[in-house]
Protein backbone atom coordinates (compact mmCIF):
# COMPACT_ATOMS: atom_id res chain seq x y z
CA UNK A 1 0.00 0.00 0.00
CA UNK A 2 1.68 3.16 -1.20
CA UNK A 3 0.61 6.76 -1.08
CA UNK A 4 0.96 7.09 -4.85
CA UNK A 5 -2.42 5.49 -5.39
CA UNK A 6 -3.85 8.82 -4.22
CA UNK A 7 -1.97 10.75 -6.89
CA UNK A 8 -4.55 10.31 -9.67
CA UNK A 9 -7.05 11.98 -7.35
CA UNK A 10 -4.54 14.70 -6.48
CA UNK A 11 -4.30 15.50 -10.18
CA UNK A 12 -8.10 15.33 -10.43
CA UNK A 13 -8.42 17.77 -7.51
CA UNK A 14 -5.98 20.22 -9.05
CA UNK A 15 -8.01 20.24 -12.27
CA UNK A 16 -11.56 20.11 -10.90
CA UNK A 17 -11.28 21.84 -7.53
CA UNK A 18 -8.33 24.22 -7.55
CA UNK A 19 -8.32 25.33 -11.19
CA UNK A 20 -12.05 26.30 -11.20
CA UNK A 21 -11.56 28.49 -8.14
CA UNK A 22 -8.46 30.09 -9.67
CA UNK A 23 -10.49 30.76 -12.81
CA UNK A 24 -13.19 32.46 -10.74
CA UNK A 25 -10.51 34.63 -9.11
CA UNK A 26 -9.02 35.37 -12.49
CA UNK A 27 -12.36 36.43 -13.96
CA UNK A 28 -13.13 38.64 -10.97
CA UNK A 29 -9.98 40.69 -11.52
CA UNK A 30 -10.09 41.00 -15.31
CA UNK A 31 -12.12 42.42 -18.15
CA UNK A 32 -12.15 42.07 -21.92
CA UNK A 33 -10.90 45.15 -23.71
CA UNK A 34 -12.54 46.23 -26.96
CA UNK A 35 -9.62 44.80 -28.95
CA UNK A 36 -10.22 41.43 -27.25
CA UNK A 37 -7.27 41.40 -24.88
CA UNK A 38 -7.77 40.56 -21.22
CA UNK A 39 -6.69 43.23 -18.74
CA UNK A 40 -6.49 43.32 -14.97
CA UNK A 41 -8.85 45.54 -13.01
CA UNK A 42 -10.43 46.00 -9.58
CA UNK A 43 -13.34 47.83 -11.21
CA UNK A 44 -15.88 45.03 -10.49
CA UNK A 45 -15.25 45.26 -6.77
CA UNK A 46 -15.45 49.04 -6.90
CA UNK A 47 -18.79 48.83 -8.73
CA UNK A 48 -20.13 46.41 -6.13
CA UNK A 49 -19.23 48.57 -3.16
CA UNK A 50 -19.92 52.04 -4.61
CA UNK A 51 -22.61 51.26 -7.18
CA UNK A 52 -20.62 53.30 -9.72
CA UNK A 53 -22.72 53.83 -12.84
CA UNK A 54 -26.00 53.02 -11.08
CA UNK A 55 -28.53 55.57 -9.82
CA UNK A 56 -28.62 53.90 -6.42
CA UNK A 57 -25.06 53.70 -5.04
CA UNK A 58 -26.14 51.08 -2.49
CA UNK A 59 -27.84 48.81 -5.02
CA UNK A 60 -25.48 45.88 -4.48
CA UNK A 61 -24.65 46.59 -0.84
CA UNK A 62 -28.36 46.38 -0.04
CA UNK A 63 -28.50 42.91 -1.59
CA UNK A 64 -25.45 41.83 0.41
CA UNK A 65 -26.86 43.16 3.68
CA UNK A 66 -30.27 41.60 3.00
CA UNK A 67 -28.60 38.22 2.42
CA UNK A 68 -26.59 38.48 5.62
CA UNK A 69 -29.64 39.66 7.62
CA UNK A 70 -31.98 36.93 6.32
CA UNK A 71 -29.32 34.24 6.81
CA UNK A 72 -28.71 35.49 10.36
CA UNK A 73 -32.43 35.44 11.23
CA UNK A 74 -32.76 31.97 9.67
CA UNK A 75 -29.85 30.68 11.74
CA UNK A 76 -31.25 32.10 14.99
CA UNK A 77 -34.74 30.72 14.30
CA UNK A 78 -33.29 27.30 13.44
CA UNK A 79 -31.32 27.31 16.68
CA UNK A 80 -34.28 28.35 18.85
CA UNK A 81 -36.68 25.89 17.19
CA UNK A 82 -34.18 23.08 16.72
CA UNK A 83 -32.26 22.93 19.97
CA UNK A 84 -35.18 21.77 22.16
CA UNK A 85 -36.04 19.06 19.63
CA UNK A 86 -32.44 17.84 19.58
CA UNK A 87 -32.55 17.72 23.38
CA UNK A 88 -35.87 15.88 23.56
CA UNK A 89 -34.76 13.36 20.94
CA UNK A 90 -31.45 12.76 22.71
CA UNK A 91 -33.33 11.75 25.87
CA UNK A 92 -35.75 9.35 24.21
CA UNK A 93 -35.16 5.63 24.06
CA UNK A 94 -35.62 2.67 21.73
CA UNK A 95 -37.56 2.45 18.51
CA UNK A 96 -39.43 5.74 19.00
CA UNK A 97 -36.14 7.61 19.15
CA UNK A 98 -34.54 6.00 16.11
CA UNK A 99 -37.73 6.39 14.09
CA UNK A 100 -38.10 10.06 15.00
CA UNK A 101 -34.48 10.74 14.05
CA UNK A 102 -35.08 8.88 10.81
CA UNK A 103 -38.20 10.96 10.15
CA UNK A 104 -36.00 14.02 10.49
CA UNK A 105 -33.82 12.80 7.63
CA UNK A 106 -36.52 11.41 5.32
CA UNK A 107 -37.69 14.82 3.98
CA UNK A 108 -34.12 15.46 2.85
CA UNK A 109 -34.46 12.47 0.52
CA UNK A 110 -37.28 14.19 -1.32
CA UNK A 111 -36.24 16.66 -3.94
CA UNK A 112 -35.85 19.97 -2.10
CA UNK A 113 -37.31 21.93 -5.01
CA UNK A 114 -40.52 19.92 -4.86
CA UNK A 115 -40.86 20.50 -1.13
CA UNK A 116 -40.12 24.20 -1.42
CA UNK A 117 -42.59 24.46 -4.26
CA UNK A 118 -45.27 22.81 -2.10
CA UNK A 119 -44.89 25.67 0.36
CA UNK A 120 -46.21 27.96 -2.36
CA UNK A 121 -49.57 26.20 -2.31
CA UNK A 122 -49.65 26.42 1.47
CA UNK A 123 -48.76 30.10 1.67
CA UNK A 124 -50.45 31.62 -1.35
CA UNK A 125 -53.40 34.02 -1.09
CA UNK A 126 -56.06 31.32 -1.62
CA UNK A 127 -53.76 28.70 -0.15
CA UNK A 128 -54.25 26.10 2.51
CA UNK A 129 -53.06 28.27 5.38
CA UNK A 130 -55.40 31.12 4.50
CA UNK A 131 -58.46 28.93 3.95
CA UNK A 132 -57.75 27.37 7.34
CA UNK A 133 -57.41 30.79 8.97
CA UNK A 134 -60.62 32.14 7.46
CA UNK A 135 -62.50 28.97 8.41
CA UNK A 136 -61.65 29.46 12.09
CA UNK A 137 -62.52 33.15 11.77
CA UNK A 138 -59.04 34.67 11.79
CA UNK A 139 -57.83 37.33 9.35
CA UNK A 140 -55.87 35.96 6.40
CA UNK A 141 -52.19 36.68 5.88
CA UNK A 142 -50.18 37.49 2.78
CA UNK A 143 -46.88 35.75 3.35
CA UNK A 144 -45.96 34.48 -0.11
CA UNK A 145 -43.46 36.66 -1.99
CA UNK A 146 -42.23 38.40 1.15
CA UNK A 147 -39.06 38.10 3.21
CA UNK A 148 -41.05 36.09 5.76
CA UNK A 149 -41.76 33.41 3.18
CA UNK A 150 -38.08 33.28 2.21
CA UNK A 151 -37.03 32.91 5.85
CA UNK A 152 -39.68 30.24 6.37
CA UNK A 153 -38.43 28.34 3.33
CA UNK A 154 -34.84 28.55 4.51
CA UNK A 155 -35.69 27.48 8.06
CA UNK A 156 -37.71 24.59 6.64
CA UNK A 157 -34.94 23.41 4.34
CA UNK A 158 -31.98 23.87 6.64
CA UNK A 159 -33.27 23.08 10.14
CA UNK A 160 -32.28 19.38 9.99
CA UNK A 161 -28.68 20.56 9.60
CA UNK A 162 -29.06 22.39 12.91
CA UNK A 163 -30.84 19.61 14.80
CA UNK A 164 -28.66 16.66 13.75
CA UNK A 165 -25.22 17.89 14.89
CA UNK A 166 -26.63 19.13 18.21
CA UNK A 167 -28.44 15.82 18.69
CA UNK A 168 -25.23 13.88 17.96
CA UNK A 169 -23.35 15.80 20.66
CA UNK A 170 -26.16 15.63 23.24
CA UNK A 171 -26.70 11.91 22.77
CA UNK A 172 -23.05 11.21 23.53
CA UNK A 173 -23.00 13.50 26.57
CA UNK A 174 -22.00 11.81 29.80
CA UNK A 175 -25.16 11.73 31.95
CA UNK A 176 -23.11 11.64 35.15
CA UNK A 177 -22.15 15.31 34.71
CA UNK A 178 -25.86 16.13 35.00
CA UNK A 179 -26.12 14.12 38.20
CA UNK A 180 -23.01 15.87 39.46
CA UNK A 181 -24.58 19.25 38.74
CA UNK A 182 -27.76 18.20 40.56
CA UNK A 183 -25.74 16.91 43.52
CA UNK A 184 -23.97 20.25 43.72
CA UNK A 185 -27.35 21.95 43.98
CA UNK A 186 -27.95 23.26 40.47
CA UNK A 187 -31.57 23.40 39.35
CA UNK A 188 -32.61 22.39 35.84
CA UNK A 189 -32.20 25.87 34.42
CA UNK A 190 -28.74 26.42 35.89
CA UNK A 191 -27.68 22.94 34.77
CA UNK A 192 -28.71 23.81 31.24
CA UNK A 193 -26.96 27.19 31.18
CA UNK A 194 -23.80 26.08 32.94
CA UNK A 195 -23.39 22.46 31.87
CA UNK A 196 -25.49 21.20 28.97
CA UNK A 197 -25.30 24.18 26.64
CA UNK A 198 -21.54 24.78 26.95
CA UNK A 199 -20.87 21.08 26.40
CA UNK A 200 -23.09 21.09 23.29
CA UNK A 201 -21.31 24.11 21.76
CA UNK A 202 -19.35 22.14 19.14
CA UNK A 203 -22.65 20.79 17.81
CA UNK A 204 -24.24 24.24 17.91
CA UNK A 205 -21.30 25.75 16.04
CA UNK A 206 -21.35 23.17 13.27
CA UNK A 207 -25.14 23.55 13.08
CA UNK A 208 -24.84 27.33 12.82
CA UNK A 209 -22.27 27.00 10.04
CA UNK A 210 -24.32 24.44 8.16
CA UNK A 211 -27.40 26.67 8.26
CA UNK A 212 -25.78 30.06 7.75
CA UNK A 213 -23.68 29.14 4.73
CA UNK A 214 -26.40 27.70 2.48
CA UNK A 215 -28.77 30.47 3.63
CA UNK A 216 -26.43 33.24 2.48
CA UNK A 217 -25.76 31.64 -0.87
CA UNK A 218 -29.18 30.22 -1.84
CA UNK A 219 -30.86 31.59 -4.93
CA UNK A 220 -33.61 29.01 -5.40
CA UNK A 221 -35.63 29.73 -2.24
CA UNK A 222 -35.82 33.51 -2.81
CA UNK A 223 -36.66 32.84 -6.45
CA UNK A 224 -39.59 30.54 -5.61
CA UNK A 225 -40.91 31.87 -2.30
CA UNK A 226 -39.75 35.47 -2.74
CA UNK A 227 -41.13 35.51 -6.28
CA UNK A 228 -38.19 37.60 -7.47
CA UNK A 229 -39.13 40.40 -5.08
CA UNK A 230 -36.62 39.37 -2.42
CA UNK A 231 -33.27 39.42 -4.17
CA UNK A 232 -30.36 37.80 -2.38
CA UNK A 233 -26.72 37.59 -3.33
CA UNK A 234 -27.17 34.13 -4.89
CA UNK A 235 -29.79 35.59 -7.24
CA UNK A 236 -27.41 38.38 -8.20
CA UNK A 237 -24.65 35.88 -8.99
CA UNK A 238 -26.96 33.61 -10.98
CA UNK A 239 -28.35 36.61 -12.86
CA UNK A 240 -24.87 37.88 -13.75
CA UNK A 241 -23.77 34.46 -15.03
CA UNK A 242 -26.84 33.15 -16.82
CA UNK A 243 -28.83 36.33 -17.52
CA UNK A 244 -26.37 39.14 -18.21
CA UNK A 245 -23.44 36.92 -19.22
CA UNK A 246 -21.22 39.23 -17.18
CA UNK A 247 -18.94 36.52 -15.84
CA UNK A 248 -16.37 39.03 -14.58
CA UNK A 249 -18.78 40.90 -12.33
CA UNK A 250 -20.49 37.63 -11.35
CA UNK A 251 -17.14 36.17 -10.32
CA UNK A 252 -16.33 39.27 -8.29
CA UNK A 253 -19.66 39.00 -6.44
CA UNK A 254 -18.94 35.30 -5.76
CA UNK A 255 -15.52 36.17 -4.35
CA UNK A 256 -17.12 38.82 -2.11
CA UNK A 257 -19.72 36.31 -0.90
CA UNK A 258 -17.02 33.72 -0.21
CA UNK A 259 -15.02 36.29 1.74
CA UNK A 260 -17.98 37.08 3.99
CA UNK A 261 -18.61 33.39 4.64
CA UNK A 262 -14.93 32.83 5.45
CA UNK A 263 -14.92 35.78 7.85
CA UNK A 264 -18.06 34.41 9.51
CA UNK A 265 -16.48 30.97 9.94
CA UNK A 266 -13.27 32.54 11.24
CA UNK A 267 -15.17 34.51 13.90
CA UNK A 268 -17.11 31.39 14.86
CA UNK A 269 -13.94 29.33 15.20
CA UNK A 270 -12.45 32.04 17.35
CA UNK A 271 -15.42 31.94 19.72
CA UNK A 272 -15.08 28.18 19.88
CA UNK A 273 -11.39 28.34 20.77
CA UNK A 274 -11.96 30.84 23.54
CA UNK A 275 -14.52 28.57 25.12
CA UNK A 276 -11.99 25.78 25.18
CA UNK A 277 -9.18 28.02 26.32
CA UNK A 278 -7.04 27.50 23.25
CA UNK A 279 -6.00 29.93 20.56
CA UNK A 280 -5.19 28.32 17.25
CA UNK A 281 -5.64 31.43 15.13
Amino acid at each position, binding site marked *: *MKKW*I*AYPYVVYMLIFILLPLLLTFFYSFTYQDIDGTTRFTVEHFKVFFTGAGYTNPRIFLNILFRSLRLAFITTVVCLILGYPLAMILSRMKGVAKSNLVLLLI*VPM*WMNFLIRT*YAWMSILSREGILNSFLSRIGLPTVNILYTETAVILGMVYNFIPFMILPIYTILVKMDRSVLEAAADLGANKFITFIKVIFPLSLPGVLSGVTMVFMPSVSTFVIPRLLGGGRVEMIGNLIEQQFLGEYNWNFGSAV*SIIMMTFILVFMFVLQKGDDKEQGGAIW
Partner: protein
Amino acid sequence: MVRKFLTNTYVFLMYLFLYAPILVLVIFSFNDSRSRTSWEGFTLRWYRELFSNDQIMQSLRYTLIIAILAAMISTIIGTFAAIGIYKMRFLERQLVLNLNYLPVLNPDILTGLSLMLLFIFLNIPLGFITLLLAHITFCIPYVILSVLPKLRQLPANTMEAAMDLGAEPLYAIKKVILPQITPGIVSGSLIAFTLSIDDFVISFFTTGRGVSNLSITIFSMARRGINPTINALSTLLFCSVLILLLLINFQKDKEKERGF
Protein backbone atom coordinates in the same frame (compact mmCIF):
# COMPACT_ATOMS: atom_id res chain seq x y z
CA MET B 1 -48.41 16.42 33.14
CA VAL B 2 -48.50 19.96 31.74
CA ARG B 3 -44.82 19.69 30.95
CA LYS B 4 -45.25 16.42 29.09
CA PHE B 5 -48.20 17.85 27.18
CA LEU B 6 -46.19 20.90 26.14
CA THR B 7 -43.26 18.73 25.05
CA ASN B 8 -45.48 16.47 22.97
CA THR B 9 -47.26 19.43 21.38
CA TYR B 10 -43.95 21.01 20.46
CA VAL B 11 -42.57 17.78 18.96
CA PHE B 12 -45.83 17.28 17.04
CA LEU B 13 -45.77 20.82 15.66
CA MET B 14 -42.13 20.51 14.59
CA TYR B 15 -42.83 17.31 12.68
CA LEU B 16 -45.99 18.85 11.22
CA PHE B 17 -43.82 21.71 9.97
CA LEU B 18 -41.33 19.27 8.42
CA TYR B 19 -44.02 17.16 6.79
CA ALA B 20 -46.63 19.80 5.86
CA PRO B 21 -45.38 20.29 2.29
CA ILE B 22 -45.01 16.54 1.80
CA LEU B 23 -48.59 15.99 3.01
CA VAL B 24 -49.78 18.66 0.60
CA LEU B 25 -47.95 16.96 -2.26
CA VAL B 26 -49.39 13.56 -1.46
CA ILE B 27 -52.94 14.86 -1.08
CA PHE B 28 -52.87 16.95 -4.24
CA SER B 29 -51.42 14.07 -6.26
CA PHE B 30 -54.94 12.59 -6.01
CA ASN B 31 -56.71 15.86 -6.79
CA ASP B 32 -59.00 15.84 -9.82
CA SER B 33 -57.84 19.26 -11.04
CA ARG B 34 -54.65 21.07 -11.87
CA SER B 35 -55.24 23.40 -8.94
CA ARG B 36 -52.70 23.36 -6.15
CA THR B 37 -55.06 24.91 -3.63
CA SER B 38 -58.61 23.59 -3.97
CA TRP B 39 -59.76 19.99 -3.72
CA GLU B 40 -61.93 18.81 -6.61
CA GLY B 41 -62.33 15.12 -5.87
CA PHE B 42 -60.29 11.92 -6.04
CA THR B 43 -58.50 10.70 -9.16
CA LEU B 44 -55.60 8.50 -10.19
CA ARG B 45 -55.20 10.41 -13.43
CA TRP B 46 -51.81 11.95 -12.54
CA TYR B 47 -50.35 8.55 -11.79
CA ARG B 48 -51.44 7.31 -15.22
CA GLU B 49 -50.13 10.45 -16.90
CA LEU B 50 -46.82 10.17 -15.11
CA PHE B 51 -45.72 7.13 -17.09
CA SER B 52 -46.60 8.73 -20.40
CA ASN B 53 -44.94 12.07 -19.62
CA ASP B 54 -41.71 11.87 -21.62
CA GLN B 55 -40.12 14.97 -20.14
CA ILE B 56 -40.48 13.76 -16.56
CA MET B 57 -39.55 10.14 -17.28
CA GLN B 58 -36.51 11.25 -19.26
CA SER B 59 -35.28 13.51 -16.44
CA LEU B 60 -35.95 10.74 -13.91
CA ARG B 61 -33.79 8.48 -16.08
CA TYR B 62 -31.00 11.09 -16.22
CA THR B 63 -31.21 11.62 -12.46
CA LEU B 64 -30.82 7.90 -11.74
CA ILE B 65 -28.11 7.27 -14.36
CA ILE B 66 -26.07 10.23 -13.15
CA ALA B 67 -26.54 9.29 -9.48
CA ILE B 68 -25.56 5.64 -10.00
CA LEU B 69 -22.55 6.48 -12.19
CA ALA B 70 -21.42 9.32 -9.93
CA ALA B 71 -21.75 7.15 -6.81
CA MET B 72 -19.85 4.24 -8.38
CA ILE B 73 -17.03 6.27 -9.90
CA SER B 74 -16.57 8.54 -6.90
CA THR B 75 -16.58 5.51 -4.57
CA ILE B 76 -13.79 3.83 -6.55
CA ILE B 77 -11.64 6.96 -6.92
CA GLY B 78 -12.41 8.07 -3.36
CA THR B 79 -11.54 4.74 -1.76
CA PHE B 80 -8.17 4.51 -3.51
CA ALA B 81 -7.49 8.17 -2.73
CA ALA B 82 -8.35 7.61 0.93
CA ILE B 83 -5.95 4.64 1.18
CA GLY B 84 -3.22 6.74 -0.41
CA ILE B 85 -3.93 9.78 1.78
CA TYR B 86 -3.83 7.54 4.85
CA LYS B 87 -0.27 6.57 3.94
CA MET B 88 0.90 10.14 3.34
CA ARG B 89 3.14 12.06 5.68
CA PHE B 90 1.63 14.79 7.83
CA LEU B 91 2.21 17.91 5.72
CA GLU B 92 1.32 16.31 2.43
CA ARG B 93 -1.81 14.80 3.98
CA GLN B 94 -2.93 18.13 5.45
CA LEU B 95 -2.48 19.80 2.08
CA VAL B 96 -4.50 17.18 0.22
CA LEU B 97 -7.20 17.02 2.89
CA ASN B 98 -7.65 20.80 2.91
CA LEU B 99 -8.01 20.84 -0.84
CA ASN B 100 -10.45 17.94 -0.54
CA TYR B 101 -12.50 19.96 1.97
CA LEU B 102 -13.06 22.87 -0.41
CA PRO B 103 -16.12 21.47 -2.21
CA VAL B 104 -17.64 20.54 1.18
CA LEU B 105 -17.13 24.03 2.61
CA ASN B 106 -17.84 26.07 -0.50
CA PRO B 107 -21.41 27.15 -1.22
CA ASP B 108 -23.01 25.06 -3.98
CA ILE B 109 -23.39 28.04 -6.24
CA LEU B 110 -19.65 28.72 -6.18
CA THR B 111 -18.80 25.07 -6.93
CA GLY B 112 -21.33 25.08 -9.75
CA LEU B 113 -20.33 28.27 -11.46
CA SER B 114 -16.59 27.71 -11.09
CA LEU B 115 -16.98 24.27 -12.69
CA MET B 116 -18.99 25.88 -15.47
CA LEU B 117 -16.14 28.35 -16.04
CA LEU B 118 -13.70 25.41 -16.12
CA PHE B 119 -15.68 23.42 -18.68
CA ILE B 120 -16.02 26.44 -20.92
CA PHE B 121 -12.32 27.23 -20.45
CA LEU B 122 -11.40 23.64 -21.39
CA ASN B 123 -13.82 23.74 -24.32
CA ILE B 124 -15.86 20.78 -23.11
CA PRO B 125 -19.43 21.24 -24.42
CA LEU B 126 -21.91 21.43 -21.52
CA GLY B 127 -24.12 18.34 -21.34
CA PHE B 128 -24.15 14.83 -19.96
CA ILE B 129 -20.38 14.50 -19.56
CA THR B 130 -19.94 17.81 -17.73
CA LEU B 131 -22.94 17.04 -15.51
CA LEU B 132 -21.43 13.68 -14.59
CA LEU B 133 -17.96 15.16 -13.99
CA ALA B 134 -19.45 17.84 -11.73
CA HIS B 135 -21.36 15.26 -9.70
CA ILE B 136 -18.26 13.06 -9.34
CA THR B 137 -16.30 16.12 -8.22
CA PHE B 138 -18.64 17.03 -5.37
CA CYS B 139 -19.16 13.38 -4.33
CA ILE B 140 -15.54 12.21 -3.97
CA PRO B 141 -14.73 14.39 -0.92
CA TYR B 142 -17.62 12.82 1.03
CA VAL B 143 -16.46 9.30 0.11
CA ILE B 144 -12.95 10.10 1.32
CA LEU B 145 -14.28 11.64 4.51
CA SER B 146 -16.27 8.51 5.33
CA VAL B 147 -13.56 5.98 4.36
CA LEU B 148 -10.63 7.67 6.15
CA PRO B 149 -11.98 7.18 9.71
CA LYS B 150 -12.40 3.44 9.01
CA LEU B 151 -8.77 3.26 7.84
CA ARG B 152 -7.64 4.99 11.04
CA GLN B 153 -9.49 2.32 13.06
CA LEU B 154 -7.51 -0.49 11.40
CA PRO B 155 -4.95 -2.12 13.67
CA ALA B 156 -1.51 -0.71 12.91
CA ASN B 157 0.62 -2.68 10.43
CA THR B 158 -2.28 -4.83 9.15
CA MET B 159 -0.96 -4.29 5.67
CA GLU B 160 2.62 -5.14 6.57
CA ALA B 161 1.48 -8.31 8.32
CA ALA B 162 -0.40 -9.42 5.20
CA MET B 163 2.63 -8.68 3.04
CA ASP B 164 4.99 -10.51 5.43
CA LEU B 165 2.76 -13.53 4.97
CA GLY B 166 3.40 -13.29 1.25
CA ALA B 167 0.53 -11.20 -0.10
CA GLU B 168 1.17 -8.90 -3.05
CA PRO B 169 0.18 -5.26 -2.28
CA LEU B 170 -2.95 -5.29 -4.45
CA TYR B 171 -3.94 -8.72 -3.15
CA ALA B 172 -3.50 -7.49 0.43
CA ILE B 173 -5.66 -4.47 -0.25
CA LYS B 174 -8.36 -6.65 -1.80
CA LYS B 175 -8.34 -9.41 0.81
CA VAL B 176 -7.35 -7.61 4.01
CA ILE B 177 -7.95 -3.88 3.87
CA LEU B 178 -11.11 -3.61 1.75
CA PRO B 179 -13.27 -6.01 3.79
CA GLN B 180 -12.50 -4.07 6.95
CA ILE B 181 -13.29 -0.64 5.58
CA THR B 182 -16.42 -1.79 3.75
CA PRO B 183 -18.84 0.02 6.12
CA GLY B 184 -17.10 3.33 5.35
CA ILE B 185 -17.21 2.63 1.62
CA VAL B 186 -20.90 1.72 1.73
CA SER B 187 -21.89 4.82 3.68
CA GLY B 188 -19.69 6.96 1.45
CA SER B 189 -21.36 5.67 -1.69
CA LEU B 190 -24.81 6.13 -0.12
CA ILE B 191 -23.99 9.75 0.73
CA ALA B 192 -22.72 10.26 -2.81
CA PHE B 193 -25.89 8.75 -4.29
CA THR B 194 -28.15 10.87 -2.06
CA LEU B 195 -26.26 14.09 -2.78
CA SER B 196 -26.32 13.45 -6.49
CA ILE B 197 -30.04 12.65 -6.59
CA ASP B 198 -30.99 15.80 -4.69
CA ASP B 199 -28.58 18.23 -6.31
CA PHE B 200 -29.98 21.16 -8.19
CA VAL B 201 -27.63 24.13 -8.00
CA ILE B 202 -24.47 22.47 -9.32
CA SER B 203 -26.40 20.63 -12.05
CA PHE B 204 -28.11 23.87 -13.04
CA PHE B 205 -24.77 25.49 -13.87
CA THR B 206 -23.00 22.51 -15.40
CA THR B 207 -25.58 20.89 -17.67
CA GLY B 208 -26.35 21.81 -21.23
CA ARG B 209 -29.07 21.72 -23.83
CA GLY B 210 -31.34 18.69 -23.68
CA VAL B 211 -29.85 17.08 -20.57
CA SER B 212 -31.80 17.81 -17.41
CA ASN B 213 -32.33 15.91 -14.20
CA LEU B 214 -35.51 16.05 -12.14
CA SER B 215 -34.45 19.15 -10.19
CA ILE B 216 -33.79 21.13 -13.33
CA THR B 217 -37.08 20.00 -14.89
CA ILE B 218 -39.00 21.00 -11.77
CA PHE B 219 -37.24 24.35 -11.58
CA SER B 220 -38.05 25.16 -15.19
CA MET B 221 -41.66 24.03 -14.64
CA ALA B 222 -42.08 26.20 -11.54
CA ARG B 223 -42.51 29.34 -13.63
CA ARG B 224 -45.47 28.02 -15.61
CA GLY B 225 -46.92 25.99 -12.76
CA ILE B 226 -45.83 22.49 -11.94
CA ASN B 227 -47.60 19.60 -13.60
CA PRO B 228 -49.45 17.53 -10.93
CA THR B 229 -47.75 14.41 -12.29
CA ILE B 230 -44.68 15.67 -10.41
CA ASN B 231 -46.76 15.32 -7.23
CA ALA B 232 -47.59 11.75 -8.21
CA LEU B 233 -43.93 11.00 -8.85
CA SER B 234 -42.82 12.51 -5.53
CA THR B 235 -45.50 10.55 -3.69
CA LEU B 236 -44.23 7.29 -5.18
CA LEU B 237 -40.61 8.18 -4.41
CA PHE B 238 -41.47 9.27 -0.89
CA CYS B 239 -43.40 6.09 -0.07
CA SER B 240 -40.66 3.81 -1.35
CA VAL B 241 -37.93 5.64 0.56
CA LEU B 242 -39.97 5.75 3.75
CA ILE B 243 -40.91 2.06 3.68
CA LEU B 244 -37.36 1.03 2.89
CA LEU B 245 -35.88 3.10 5.71
CA LEU B 246 -38.44 2.03 8.29
CA LEU B 247 -37.86 -1.64 7.39
CA ILE B 248 -34.10 -1.22 7.80
CA ASN B 249 -34.62 0.58 11.09
CA PHE B 250 -36.93 -2.07 12.56
CA GLN B 251 -34.56 -4.77 11.37
CA LYS B 252 -31.70 -3.07 13.24
CA ASP B 253 -33.76 -2.85 16.42
CA LYS B 254 -34.60 -6.54 16.19
CA GLU B 255 -30.95 -7.42 15.76
CA LYS B 256 -30.07 -5.33 18.78
CA GLU B 257 -32.67 -7.16 20.85
CA ARG B 258 -31.23 -10.50 19.78
CA GLY B 259 -27.88 -9.26 20.98
CA PHE B 260 -25.99 -8.77 17.73
